[in-house]
């Protein structure tokens, strides 16, 4: 019999390559993982045998991820660059997946037409589309595809016992292992164990006349008969799983994943967090959901019994945190490490053969006959249309998910950043990106500069990162308190990590950068703002690394490709035979076990109908709920939420449409009123939660108390608004708020300021800066400093003055010691200092000693977000002495001082006042530094207040500050002995420049307050200008 080409498979391949091959160019780069793999590939392309990578996380080993896919991309990148490599590997993965599903389906059904149908449908399987186009998990796809190729070989080895098949199956298992480590381990459980069960069934079946005669005894006997083959295969594949990526296992043992688990959407309760349910359940299942009854019916037939169990377990585990079953099945640790979406992926892949079978029976088999007979031909066509339509819809929806809900920021042009890092030795320092998403991996792949961050969280090493549930500092704003807390520590003590440059693609982080002492350098041509911190030493040229034995490096560099080579040699002949039909080969054994599709079970058809009906009801009910929730004017609550959401996302037109039309504020006026308000709350806040209390009802008017929680980079803000709403023609509208109408005195006015520009080096040269171009560090003086204890935490407070003639950037670093001069803690001043001082300007300061937040109490990370919260360091011993290192550097930026305290009223508990902006820049965030003094006018504490609203030019802004509650400040040490300015003793310097300092000069101008523990306060003002012009 001449074998014909399987036209279904060929069309599946062509279709798959055309469809996926062309669309990956638009999707793959914006997926979550693809660029990470690209970064790893870049590592291999540059140093194939050296596993240590310095670029991320202050160094990590690439032996923490199986290398095959990365190495393939790396090797192909030699031809046409990294992206060429990635797309080539993706194309190979597509081919492997389609052929893999074909072979797997052929194995399962024993029918070439059915397998052809299955491979055709697999091209459009939504789980594959999602894994490739949304997640970009190339190694996972390659792994599972090769595993599917291995399954027929395993079957044949177990069935026939021919050693050749053992060799081919093991060679393919080896390739699977080197491309993805999780796939073969769980693949053993979910693919190979059921397959073994099926082989035993088949062998048993051959001994009797019909499947019904196969009983448990026979099954057990057959099992013992095949035991040797099973065990030999099992043991050998275990050896391969361990042996092929031995350095990986060694590394995981040496660096076990001891970090706090990172939340993953696949562990959510899908009913509560519907977006996770969509991405991790609905999309991967897709059309298969309709076929579930058929799939379970078929998989629970005797031959497939074990596949039935496997697909059931996968389905249940894939539901994540919806029920507590997956948690109980996997245990706490595994549940928190594994991403559960892969179980759904496997369940859907396991279902592909049956989907093909269903399609075959529906299109040209017994199901078609049954339906036509029962319901008529038209019904059959309609159902077919609906199913096909659903399938196409799922594919289109999944492909375009990134369009509707972008998971990544807009594509960033990396060239200006790469050029910046190459310029002027900028790559001698570490950098950090903010708001880049996974594109940071692409930047890392293009530059040699190192970052403290990284994008492969299993490899994190710094305790500041591993103790937090954050993947990257980069997107810390999405990770609430833990994220911003972690970021703040990096920003406050950057010299610890040699972190000098920050590339910010997200304005949200600007205030925290400014108040932590960073300054804007310039905006690159791609719109990325570069921030820089002065006084950071460059990265040392010799960096520590964890070296591994040479043979491990060689093993890691050679074995993965060797497995591919061997698998290629062993399987190529068979591949040719299968695909090109060059010669006739005996039919594989599994073809003997095909089922004849003669009579479709009527009950299954009925159940499928009922199930589809239930699904349809659920879907429509879901859509209805969605509509109720999103119809913005249906209820007053909806109107308020819609209004705040619109404001949060700056959709002012939408917000305006919710304003009472009777009020006749034109949109132009509304926009004007909204757009003139700047400040922490209106420009840098992200709404976290909103709560509305409808305080009074009548038919058409309602008043509401709106309590909204806002996250800003600096602190959490709770805002209470009172809104009135009216119902007009069945729709609820908000009444507009009054606007502030402070009229500034002048239309046009002038202001003279001294501005500074630092040339850097005057000669255009790549050599080191000439010594005459190096500016003298401005001389600062610490006027007072003391170690105090207040409210349980230790702090160094004091006053620092720039006594030079040039403006200075101030960095204060405090160290605490005990009586035995043992160092206890070191930290820098964060916001409690004016980081930029004009000549002769002084600033109060406070240095908090922050521990690595929550490192002790890992499970008590607060749910609510508060960036301002800080974890005092836990001292084992009592700090008694301190050392203060002050560094000044010339800086010409952020020297806006034209803010005036124009009114103040002191009450018992609060202090009210007005700030007036007398200059020509709009102040975005004013900060008050409030210094407390005791009755003898001794400085005892420093506090701060961020004023929520900005101050426009020549306008007033009121503030309210709550005076600290009672609490005695204990002064532990007031010795000024160990204070150093630019490395020189403070006293010597101050004696030289200000020999006759008027001590406590402005003490006469302290503001008295009525307070049991404090008698006076002093107010200093620091300003952040969001957009200087």
């Amino acid at each position, binding site marked *: 019999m001449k074998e014909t080409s399987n036209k279904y498979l060929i069309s599946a391949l062509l279709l798959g390559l055309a469809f996926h091959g062309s669309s990956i160019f638009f999707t793959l780069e914006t997926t979550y993982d693809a660029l990470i793999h690209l970064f790893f590939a870049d590592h291999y392309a540059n140093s194939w045998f050296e596993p240590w990578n310095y670029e991320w996380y202050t160094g990590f080993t690439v032996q923490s991820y199986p290398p095959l896919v990365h190495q393939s991309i790396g090797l192909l990148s030699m031809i046409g660059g990294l992206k060429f490599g990635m797309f080539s590997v993706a194309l190979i993965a597509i081919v492997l997946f389609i052929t893999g599903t074909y072979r797997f389906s052929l194995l399962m059904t024993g029918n070439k037409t059915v397998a052809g149908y299955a491979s055709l449908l697999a091209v459009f399987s939504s789980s594959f589309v999602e894994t490739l186009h949304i997640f970009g998990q190339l190694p996972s796809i390659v792994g599972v595809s090769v595993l599917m190729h291995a399954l027929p070989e395993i079957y044949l080895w177990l069935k026939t016992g021919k050693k050749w098949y053992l060799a081919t199956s093991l060679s393919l298992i080896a390739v699977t292992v080197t491309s993805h480590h999780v796939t073969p381990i769980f693949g053993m459980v979910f693919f190979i164990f059921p397959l073994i069960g099926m082989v035993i069934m088949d062998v048993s079946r051959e001994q009797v006349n019909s499947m019904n005669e196969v009983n448990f005894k026979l099954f057990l006997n057959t099992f013992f008969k095949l035991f040797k083959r099973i065990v030999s295969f099992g043991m050998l594949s275990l050896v391969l799983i361990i042996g092929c990526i031995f350095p990986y296992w060694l590394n995981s043992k040496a660096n076990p994943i001891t970090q706090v688990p990172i939340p993953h959407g696949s562990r959510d309760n899908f009913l509560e967090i519907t977006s996770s349910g969509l991405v991790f359940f609905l999309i991967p299942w897709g059309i298969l959901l309709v076929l579930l009854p058929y799939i379970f019916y078929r998989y629970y037939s005797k031959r497939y019994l074990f596949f039935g169990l496997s697909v059931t377990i996968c389905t249940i585990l894939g539901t994540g945190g919806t029920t507590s079953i997956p948690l109980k099945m996997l245990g706490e640790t595994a549940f928190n490490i594994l991403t559960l979406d892969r179980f759904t992926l496997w369940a859907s892949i396991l279902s592909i053969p049956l989907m093909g079978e269903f399609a075959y029976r529906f299109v040209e088999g017994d199901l078609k006959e049954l339906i036509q007979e029962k319901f008529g031909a038209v019904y059959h066509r309609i159902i077919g249309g609906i199913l096909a339509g659903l399938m196409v819809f799922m594919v289109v929806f999944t492909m375009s998910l990134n369009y509707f809900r972008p998971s990544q920021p807009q594509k960033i042009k990396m060239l200006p950043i790469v050029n910046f890092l190459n310029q002027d030795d900028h790559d001698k320092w570490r950098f950090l990106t903010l708001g880049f998403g996974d594109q940071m991996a692409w930047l890392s792949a293009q530059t040699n500069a190192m970052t403290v961050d990284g994008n492969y969280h299993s490899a994190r090493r710094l305790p500041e990162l591993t103790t937090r549930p954050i993947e990257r500092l980069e997107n810390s704003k999405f990770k609430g308190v833990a994220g911003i807390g972690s970021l703040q520590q990096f920003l406050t003590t950057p010299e610890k990590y040699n972190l000098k440059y920050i590339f910010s693609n997200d304005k949200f982080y600007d205030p925290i950068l400014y108040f932590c002492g960073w300054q804007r350098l310039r905006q690159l041509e791609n719109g990325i703002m570069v921030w820089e911190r002065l006084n950071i030493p460059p990265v040392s040229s010799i960096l520590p690394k964890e070296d591994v034995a040479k043979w491990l490096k060689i093993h890691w560099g050679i074995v993965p490709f060797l497995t591919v080579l061997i698998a290629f040699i062993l399987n190529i002949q068979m591949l040719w035979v299968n695909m090109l039909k060059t010669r006739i080969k005996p039919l594989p054994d599994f073809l003997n076990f095909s089922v004849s599709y003669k009579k479709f079970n009527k009950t299954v058809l009925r159940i499928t109908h009922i199930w589809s009906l239930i699904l349809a009801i659920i879907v429509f009910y879901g859509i209805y709920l969605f509509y109720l929730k999103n119809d913005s004017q249906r209820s007053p609550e909806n109107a308020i939420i819609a209004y705040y959401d619109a404001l949060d996302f700056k959709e002012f037109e939408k917000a305006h449409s919710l304003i009472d039309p009777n009020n006749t504020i034109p949109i132009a006026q509304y926009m004007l009123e909204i757009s003139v308000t700047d400040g922490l709350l209106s420009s840098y806040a992200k709404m976290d939660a909103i709560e509305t209390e409808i305080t*009074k009802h009548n038919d058409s008017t309602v008043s509401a108390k709106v309590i909204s929680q806002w996250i800003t980079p600096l602190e959490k803000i709770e805002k209470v608004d009172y809104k009135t709403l009216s119902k007009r023609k069945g729709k609820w509208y908000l009444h507009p708020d009054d606007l502030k*109408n*402070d009229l500034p005195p002048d239309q046009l006015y002038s202001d003279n300021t001294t501005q500074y520009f630092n040339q850097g080096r005057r000669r255009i040269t790549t050599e080191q800066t000439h010594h005459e171009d190096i500016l003298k560090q401005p001389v600062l003086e610490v006027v007072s400093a003391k170690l105090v204890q207040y409210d349980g935490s230790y702090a160094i407070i004091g006053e620092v003055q720039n006594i030079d003639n040039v403006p200075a950037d101030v960095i204060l670093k405090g160290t605490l010691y005990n009586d035995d001069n043992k160092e206890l803690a070191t930290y820098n001043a964060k916001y409690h200092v004016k980081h930029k001082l004009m000549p002769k300007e002084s600033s109060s300061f406070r240095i908090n000693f922050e521990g690595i937040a929550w490192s002790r109490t890992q499970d008590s990370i607060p749910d609510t977000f508060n960036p301002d919260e800080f974890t005092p360091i836990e001292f084992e011993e009592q700090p008694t002495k301190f050392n203060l290192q002050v560094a000044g550097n010339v800086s010409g930026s952020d020297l806006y001082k034209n803010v005036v305290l124009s009114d103040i009223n002191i009450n018992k508990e609060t202090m009210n006042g007005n700030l007036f902006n007398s200059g020509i820049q709009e102040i975005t965030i004013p900060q008050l530094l409030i210094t407390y003094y005791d009755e003898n006018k001794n400085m005892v504490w420093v506090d701060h207040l961020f004023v929520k609203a900005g101050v426009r030019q020549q306008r007033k802004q009121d503030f309210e500050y709550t005076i600290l509650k009672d609490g005695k400040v204990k002064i532990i040490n007031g010795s000024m002995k160990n204070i150093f300015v630019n490395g020189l003793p403070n006293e010597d310097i101050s004696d030289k420049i200000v020999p006759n300092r008027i001590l406590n000069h402005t003490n006469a101008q302290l503001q008295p307050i009525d307070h049991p523990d404090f008698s006076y306060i002093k107010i200093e003002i620091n300003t952040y200008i969001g957009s200087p012009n």
Partner: protein
Amino acid sequence: MILKRTYLFILALILLSSFAVVQQNETLIKIELLSTQTEFEVGSSIVLKFSASKEEQPLLYCSNSYGSTVISSTLKNNILEFYIPENITKKIGVVNWKLLNATNPLSGQLNINPKAEVATLETYIGPPSIEAGETDYTMLVVIPTDSLDNPVPTNTLVKAKHQFLASEETNDIYTKNLISWRNMYSKKESGRMLVSSESIGINSKEFTINVMPAIPTDFKISATRPHDYADGNQITTFTTSIIKDKQNNVVSDGTFVTFFIKNKNQNILKTTGTTIDGIATSKMIHPDYEDNWNVKAYVDGMSESNSISVDYKQVIKDFDVVFSEKNRLITVGPLQSFMQQMIPDGLHVKLHIYKNNSRIETLTKTSFNGYVNFKLKSAIYNHGNYDFTIETAGISKEFKTKKLW
């Protein structure tokens, strides 16, 4: 018998040993140093000559402060000649040599002396900015070097030149321990000092030293304003006299001056300014109620001004309050300024709301066209009796038991 043999053996041994000595004596010809010069000028070629031995051609070990090397010889007319390599002869200092022969190792020293010529001047100066007042200084270090980059002989003359204001000075300094240096003290005046140096006809490039003024001394302040009414809408500008240091230099631009204002409630207000040409100006918005300000400026810890007194006259003498819309709309106004004109927009009006003699809320609004409207939302303020106090421009009015419904 045994004894005889022993004698014979000993004799033979003696004979043998004497023979060996004789053999060695025959080959011993001493290697001797022939060249006598030990002082060389840097850059000249140096050849060390030794009388040659017939069998041996030993190596010469040479070492100077940069490193060591071993050189081989050439044999010419029974004379061993060692050419000392250029990298050694180009550096001044002591060269130690040692002949590496087996028997009598010879060793010695050569001195390579600098040339009395200057090709380049290596000049360093720092710090680049110093304070006026004759106490602060910057240090000029000049290292004249010859064409081979060696320091010149001790006591080579270097002229340190500088220009400051009208004066141009040249000072003679001499090299010692390879360098020459001079501390250049500031004068009383601030300004820019240009520094250069010269040695044996070679001149350095120009260096700039900024002589910065010293810390400021006491100064005076004054206030200017468009009018003296407390309308809350004009700006008073405070100006300092030209702030100078004790040498009468104008302080550097950007010097930070803080103006403290004590108002009649003894609260401290604050405005700041930075100097330009010694004058700091600072702006302050007028208060919106009658006030008396006592203003004094400080440069923290260094100097202060006289204190001046500034008075502001009340503009709003009285205002009306109208309750309407079930007492839920309170209209304040007209608010009129000193010429009976409507007060410019933005005057703060405070409404304190009391219920049962306790304050429940304070609303602050700003005037618009001379009026302020307070709308009491029924959601927040339930039906009942309230007391109100309205406060603006330092005047307050009380309204007892107004019923809201």
